[in-house]
């Protein structure tokens, strides 16, 4: 079975753990419980008749209490930068983390704009959208609470990883 390491990165309390919980266990909890260190969950997906085991590295959010550590990205097949659409600062922090991550890996990167069930306090205008499309492979507006786009995001990433693998073999 193919096994892929996926890292979830972002500022603290943007909903990384909730996205994993929704995807792996199909549940959501309103109670915020901050992640400490790293927690790894696993889920097997069936993509194009192939089984793929995703190792989801849910990392402690980055803020003044926890700085981003590139070493956790080692061996990652892809990563998801999670930002919170109710906090504009989380986008800037997310982009900073993405920049740091890009210094150690070129693997596919996804932007997840989470908490889409809540009222947005910021929006990307067309030019920003364009700019982010260039630096992320995929972009999703997600809600761990309602489940919107969560499954789709992980599946799309898995498909993308499979495609990358095929390309690798071909080349």
């Amino acid at each position, binding site marked *: 079975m193919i*096994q892929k*390491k996926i890292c979830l990165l972002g500022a*603290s*309390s943007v909903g990384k753990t909730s996205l994993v919980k929704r995807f792996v266990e199909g549940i959501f909890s309103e109670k*915020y*419980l*901050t992640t*400490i*260190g*790293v*927690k*790894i*969950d696993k889920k097997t997906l069936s993509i194009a008749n192939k089984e793929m085991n995703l*190792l989801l*590295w849910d990392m402690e*959010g980055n*803020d*003044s*209490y*926890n700085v981003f*550590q590139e*070493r956790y990205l*080692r*061996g990652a097949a892809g990563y998801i930068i999670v930002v919170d659409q109710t*906090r*504009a*600062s989380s986008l*800037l*922090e997310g982009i*900073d983390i993405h920049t740091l991550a890009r210094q150690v890996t070129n693997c596919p990167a996804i932007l997840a704009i989470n908490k889409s069930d809540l009222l947005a*306090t910021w929006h990307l205008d067309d030019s920003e959208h364009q700019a982010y499309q260039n630096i992320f492979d995929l972009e999703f507006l997600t809600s761990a609470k309602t489940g919107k786009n969560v499954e789709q995001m992980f599946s799309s990433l898995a498909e993308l990883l499979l495609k990358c693998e095929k390309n690798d073999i071909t080349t």
Partner: protein
Amino acid sequence: MTSLLNTVLSALEQIVLEVTDTDTGTVKWLEGDSEWTNNLFPKLDSQKTFVINQESPFLLDFLIDARQIWDKSENCKLRSGLWTEITQNNKELHLEAIAIKQEQRNLLVISNQLENFTHQQNTKQLAREVLLSYDRLFLKNEYLHTRLLSILKQPVEQSNILATLAKVIENAEFAVLVASNDFSTCIENSAALTLFEQGTLKNTSTPRAIDIIIKLMKNQLPEYERILTTNSSWDGELCWILPPSTLKWLKIGLYPVKNKFNDVENWIVFANDISTIKHLTQRNEQLALQDMLTELPNRFSFLQVLEKHVASNQPFYLLYVDINDFRQHNEFYGHDEGDKLLIEFAQRIKHVVKTSDFIARVGGDEFAIILSNVDNKAACSSAIQGMVNNISKPFYTNKAEHFHVSVSIGAANFPNDAESAEELMKFVDLSAYNGKATKKNSVLFYSKSMKDASHDLLKIEQELRQAIKNNEFELYLQPIIDIKDNSINKAEALIRWNHPDRGIVSPDGFIAIAEKSGLIISIGEWVINRACQIARELDLKGFDIKISINLSPSQVADANLFSYLRTCIHDSQINPSLLELEVTEDVLVDDYSVAEKLLSKARMIGMSVSVDDFGTGYSSLSYLKKLPLDYLKIDRSFINEIVTDDNDKAIVRAVIAMAHNLNLCVIAEGVETPEQLSFLVDNSCNSVQGYMFSRPVQLAYFIKLLNEQKNIN
């Protein structure tokens, strides 16, 4: 022995594995045994080796770093950091691995960190919830503040302000009050009524919310008096205690709304109940006393320490450090960069103070420092110099743009200047505030005379307000002579203040105060209007004389200036070519793009532009090429010694040549002798101005000069 070691390791919740093959990750159990170990490694057997595999991806990944430790010959170790492992029977283990090289043995210790994990989670959970709450509060307050300002600054006739305000504030989730300048009248939203509700008996009068806030500020803020007298804004925390049952922590924001005379017309007040946040932080002593952003002690902690120092009766210096123009920095680079600056700024000060000194963040961009064991001004100055040197080095944004900050530092001595914590805080706050006008690094030691001077300044500011209303200003004109035909073709308009008691006051005595207080905009508008009237009068008398008006930095930055100029030109029915704008070099360099836009528009409608005091400021040749200019005015300091000083001669020759190359004309200021004039004529200077021809004179006398000139010609 082994049995004892085993017991100890079990108590510590650790197991020790020996790595028998570092390449494959093969390990053998050595010591330690607990229930969780079997959950983690079901195959654990003291007799057999086993391989760390994909079942534990975090540990497998850590082996890559661990190999570098085991490959070394000397003793060393490496920690993995905390991770959570979900075991096969679905239990969560909070673990840390330590790779050890000890006496040629390769060891791997796995430690169950449940206790540490729980402690970290509790602390960080609190800290992050508090950060989030403040973040939300900040965003909501910022939004509403901007909205209210835009409403309050609308012309009265254009809106039904009260109704609009009431509507806008009513839906805010926190208390919002909009008060008159003396707090006598006030509109407030429902949230304000609820927040300050006291559950008093019927028929007893309840104090108004605004009165409660003002009383709390008066009692809890040493800076209160200065904030109100200088019309400054403030935000911070206050504690409202009302026995028997009320104890609320309030985050208050107080913002003045000023009119064009810089008078406060209204105060906007925000009050957020942060008792829950406070309660959260107080569950953790460190968080209660620490500023979350900079990790320095907070204001509350600082006041406690200051009281202790005062009680100890040992002499010390108190410093108040205020970052100049921090708000502008925030607006320009964004709040994240502002936060980054505060963190680095705090670190820089921390690096230069002694461990026995105490530093805290006491306000948004304000820091306070207690210099223990410093009892003389010289030692205090040298400590401050160290700080200023470190702060003066460039700061960098995330995008690697570099910038500089300057600070205003106030200093006061215990016990010589004040004997109570409250007075000390009041005095250093005032000293720092007084230094702010320079916009450069300033250090002011508190003195009685400073307090008096500060009162004098406020008095002049008040008198200036009256002067604008009472029309006490007058424009004098100083002729500018065109060398080519030896006649007056222009005049510089210079303001004088006919003070009711002190007689004529020259600009040196009030322009700086007007600039600092914002009154310069109104005074500048008066000058423009009057200059247009004079140009019109001269034009009607048949004189083709250009009037040159000086613009201050604030005027150049004023978005309404150009439309005001146009209105005056239109109303006085003059040709715009009869007006010239004079700006100093520093204005051009400080705010190049704003100046460039303004001057281009002015020239487009036919006005001319000159650079005043050329040579005394930045003298950047690059802006001379790019900016829309007509004249350079060489500063009088070069003309003074032009006959005797070879350097000045060379400079003036060079400036004239350069200006002509750029198609600019040159005016020499401060010409007082025929020798100076002769040098300027010989070197093709275009125009001259100075006492040799005339002092600045009143309009009637100026007309007389023009008539005399006409008669001669």
